């Protein structure tokens, strides 16, 4: 079943879904394992697993450091794929790969899609691959029934949003604000107008990411968005209080 359908099914039972994010190999695959278990057990609906890249242009200090430390610890792409296979087999929620285009490009677009499909990954988030640059990759993703999630930003015009909607699969990742990951966002009137524009532009489910940190944030999104994305927040949590703290935190969000 395609990612979009899976999410729609979940949305039958919940008024908003939760997607979380981890950086593979940071602080270690072992800790990744514990964190993911806690996330799943506490009702996370979807997890994006970031394959670390040396030039994470769109990421803020927290995830940037996670990328660098993971690589410094020797994380390879093959390790990430193997770990993904393990997670998919153990947990019954959709998993996505998040990374920068060079990782896929260097691996080989088709080889990567094939591998991802084989291990049961449902889709990709690639912040530096707008559809103009990803024509061949979009085709391959469809061929292997993988959803290439596209991104909306507050700076996107209505016209641009429509264009992206045409290429998007699974859901649209709405970046809550200008800037990189990690900083707090304001969910004010401007934000609502922005989400309304997003909604008007596409029928795909809307996920909202960047700076979502608390139950309040998520409450504020109910009825406006279909999925909330928790990114840096859990990474900081694990750094401070360890993997065990993730479960309670996730639970506290709903």
């Amino acid at each position, binding site marked *: 079943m395609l990612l979009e359908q899976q999410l729609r099914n979940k949305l039958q039972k919940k008024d908003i879904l939760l997607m979380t994010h981890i950086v593979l190999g940071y602080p270690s695959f072992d800790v990744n394992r514990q964190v993911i278990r806690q996330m799943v057990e506490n009702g996370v609906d979807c997890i994006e697993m970031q394959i670390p*890249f*040396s*030039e*994470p*242009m*769109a*990421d*803020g200090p927290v995830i*940037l*450091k996670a990328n*660098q430390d993971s*690589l410094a610890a020797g994380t*390879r*792409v093959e390790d990430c794929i193997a770990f993904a296979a393990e997670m998919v087999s153990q947990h019954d929620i959709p998993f996505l790969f998040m990374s*920068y*285009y*060079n*990782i896929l*490009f*260097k*691996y080989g677009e088709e080889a990567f899609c094939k591998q991802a499909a084989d291990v049961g990954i449902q889709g990709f988030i690639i*912040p*530096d*691959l*707008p559809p*103009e*640059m990803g024509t061949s990759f979009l085709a391959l993703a469809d061929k292997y029934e993988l959803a290439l999630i*596209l*991104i*909306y*930003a*507050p*700076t*996107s*015009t209505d016209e*641009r949003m429509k264009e*992206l909607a045409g290429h998007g699969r699974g859901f649209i990742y709405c*970046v809550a604000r*200008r*800037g*990189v990951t990690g900083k707090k966002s304001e969910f004010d009137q401007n934000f609502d107008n922005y989400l309304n524009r997003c909604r008007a532009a596409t029928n795909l489910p809307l996920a909202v990411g960047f700076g979502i940190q608390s139950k309040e944030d998520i409450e504020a999104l109910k009825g406006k968005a279909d999925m909330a994305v928790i990114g840096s927040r859990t990474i900081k949590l694990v750094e401070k209080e360890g993997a065990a703290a993730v479960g309670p935190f996730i639970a506290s969000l709903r």
Partner: protein
Amino acid sequence: MDRNGFFGNWGGAYIPEVLYQTFQELKEEYRRCRKDPEFWQDYLNLMSTYSCRPTPLTYAENLTHHFGGAKIYIKREDLNHTGAHKANNVMGQGLLVKRMGKKRVIAETGAGQHGMATATMAAKFGLDCTIYMGEEDVIRQRPNVFWMEKMGATVVTVKDGSRTLKDAINEAFRDWVTNVDNTHYVFGTACGPAPFPEMVSWFQSIIGIEAAEQIVRYHGKMPEKIYACVGGGSNAMGIFKRFLDETDVELVGVEAGGQGADSGAHAIRLSSPDATPGVAQGYKTMFLQNDDGQMKNTHSVAAGLDYVGVSPILSDLWEKKQVRFESATDDEVIQALDLTMKQEGIIPALESAHAFAGAFREVGQLSPDDAIIINQSGRGDKDIFTIAHAYADPSWKKFIIGRAQEYSK
């Protein structure tokens, strides 16, 4: 450049969605400027009154006799205001920023030359300015940092990754996606997402346009070969562009050989097998990366050449064999620098000295009836700490130690 910003297989604009709209506007404004003859005229006026364009083409008589081959001419970008070709690009983008009405500029810098140039432009055009510079370069190029700050710019030391140029670029992009509405990113070289490679090359093309006119005036015909150092590729594109259709003129790009092509400690993207196609920092080109696509650390005595990528336009010209690429090691570069200072009383920047080293290797075999042009992209003053260091000059060390003692009091 095709409509997606590609040159053959290279280039493009691999940018986060947040920047999409800005790039549309930038491309639009850039197109307007190219169509508008007045813009180029304004640019020429600015460069001839604020900097000293046209820069001279100097006949290096002593070096010519020293090697006994073709006549050596040096294109003197070192005489630009702020001491390098970087001014050409920055002033051009400055005029663009004024048209776009943005109030703040940011820039990355490696050698500090581009940062200096941008801080200078910002002061002149009354713009806020933030410069991102790798920690290692901040140390290598301290004097430039001092001047940038004195001209009112904020210099941010980047401590991520390899703490050099590429990391400064990432950090600048992070600033840009955050402040996109009022900020323009003054990209410093012919790399990055379209339209930067072409736009920067356009502004720099003034070098070759002048050089072509000058060499014909002095030498009576086109040169045999033209040499330029290649970091990101802007000074090379700047002098090459005008000569691309002159099929008898061989264009030679000299990359940073660092400690040698086999040492792993170099920045050779096109003239060694170490680099492979990749996509980073918003564009596709030949990168020094590992099998996973992770960027490697590079090395060069010249901060401005110490970079993992290279202009997609040059990758295209390389693939099409329109430009030949060589490299020069740190040691060869210091020797070339030494010879040039003693023979001609000219002090090339360490970056530029790569072009000299590349030319010195070959010029002896050419006929005295022919001429070559070496593009001196900048002056070496900024490199005094690096150069004095490379020479291990004892009186310099004594001087520094003396100063430090004063400061430690």
